[in-house]
């Protein structure tokens, strides 16, 4: 039979020799192994002080993007909600009123946009589905919380701050 890995070892089922039954040699061997581990590099990451580097494709908390003028890119087309395998995204569309051009990029925008982070599996399909480059998954880890309600992220939680408004 073909071996799956080169680490496979044939088990020796012959009766134990006297040396094996005495147990002390194997005990010494075991103690040697554990002694060796004392000097090994520790695998621990001291979390709050040091953080593990993420892989370039890490998918964390979502954000809703703005365009270069600070207007929301999302048009509430619903493709992200459709693509979402966990059905975590809900939204309500609304029509842009005259005079709101600086707020919303196109005539239709999301009045309500919610992601249930307890349902979300961070697959990133919403990011792939979005035709307007509005939703992105960042490198932020989902923070823990105490209540279920606090895991439902509203549009205000997701939307990145407007750089222009911030500078005003």
């Amino acid at each position, binding site marked *: 039979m073909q071996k799956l890995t080169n680490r496979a070892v044939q088990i020796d089922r012959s009766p134990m020799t006297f040396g094996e039954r005495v147990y002390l040699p194997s005990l010494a061997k075991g103690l040697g192994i554990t002694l060796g581990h*004392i000097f090994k590099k*520790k695998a*621990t990451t001291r979390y709050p002080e040091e953080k593990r580097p993420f892989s370039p494709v890490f998918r964390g908390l979502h954000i809703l993007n703005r365009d270069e003028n600070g207007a929301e890119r999302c048009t509430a087309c619903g493709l992200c909600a459709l693509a979402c395998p966990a059905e975590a995204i809900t939204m309500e569309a609304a029509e842009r009123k005259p005079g709101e051009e600086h707020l919303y990029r196109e005539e239709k925008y999301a009045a309500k946009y919610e992601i249930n982070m307890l349902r979300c599996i961070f697959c990133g399909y919403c990011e792939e589905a979005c035709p307007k480059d509005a939703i992105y998954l960042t490198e932020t880890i989902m923070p823990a919380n105490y209540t279920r309600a606090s895991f439902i992220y509203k549009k205000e939680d997701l939307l990145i701050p407007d750089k222009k408004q911030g500078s005003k």
Partner: protein
Amino acid sequence: MLLLQIDTALIIEKVILISVILMGSLGIAMYATWGERKVSAVMQDRIGPNRAGPFGLLQPLADGLKLFFKEEIIPDRSTGFIFVLGPCLAMLTALMTSAVVPWGPDYITESGRVISFQVADINIGILFVFGAVSLGVYGVMLGGWASNNKFSLLSSIRAASQAISYELAMGISLIALLMLTGTLSLREIVSQQHGFWNDGYFSWNFFKQPIGFIIFLTCSFAELCRAPFDLPECDSELNMGYHQEYSSMKLGFYLFAEYINMFISSAIIVTLFFGGYNFPFMDSVQHATLAHPILFTIICILVLLTKIICMILFFMFVRWTLPRFRYDQLMKLGWRSLIPLALVNMLITGVLILWVFKK
């Protein structure tokens, strides 16, 4: 009525010594819990407690405080008085054994007064240790029985039978040693192991009784209920063991007693087999410190403590290396391997003493 004269200085001396030893063993037991977690951590490539204070050194304090503030639960259907008595007995017997360990050589003050660093030099020191250790089973047994929990009861029965089985091999292995020393007093046993090299041979009993040492060590693992013989508390079979129903400081007492037992049994092993406070070239060190004899005494005590700590580290080391024995394996090892081996060892020692060395 000379005999009835009370030596006040002696009483004060002993009271101070007793309190220092009690506090010391409590402190060492406290830091043994920290040490155990650190040792287990480094052996598993982890860091271990490092949040409370530098290197997590305040961790035992935090643990103790936590245990104090936990809710005290006494199960409805437990036998109240015995339920409380259990941990007290465990703690009492754990602390009792330290009375006969000689912690250092005699210190003679300038006025010619001899201060002994041993609470009681009784001539049956080892027997006392054995007696106190056997009493320790009562703490476990009563606690397990009074909990009115079948797992606790099973575990305490295991603990008792394990202790009884291994005490036998332990005693026999010691008989071989006692034939060599000719005394039961721990103080004399230590003084016989003076220095390191004596009359062309090592003076420590370990080199005279290596098999006896291995048997004694194995048995003390079993007596302490530590891995690989921690069957009384094997989590996978008995949930938590005899202290399952205990909470708060009563649980703390049980856990603590275990560590004190480890400290004391390390002290006994060091005293019996590794020369107690003796160390190589101690005569020249004593000569060099003649001007300050207290210095020599302190060095001796520190040497003893170092040996004890090494022994404790070895105990932890083994615990985090070996898997737990099965119960029948444990009994087989005790009755069918260690006891015959101890008997043979005793026989060989006797033959050697009688016909080869002609003592």
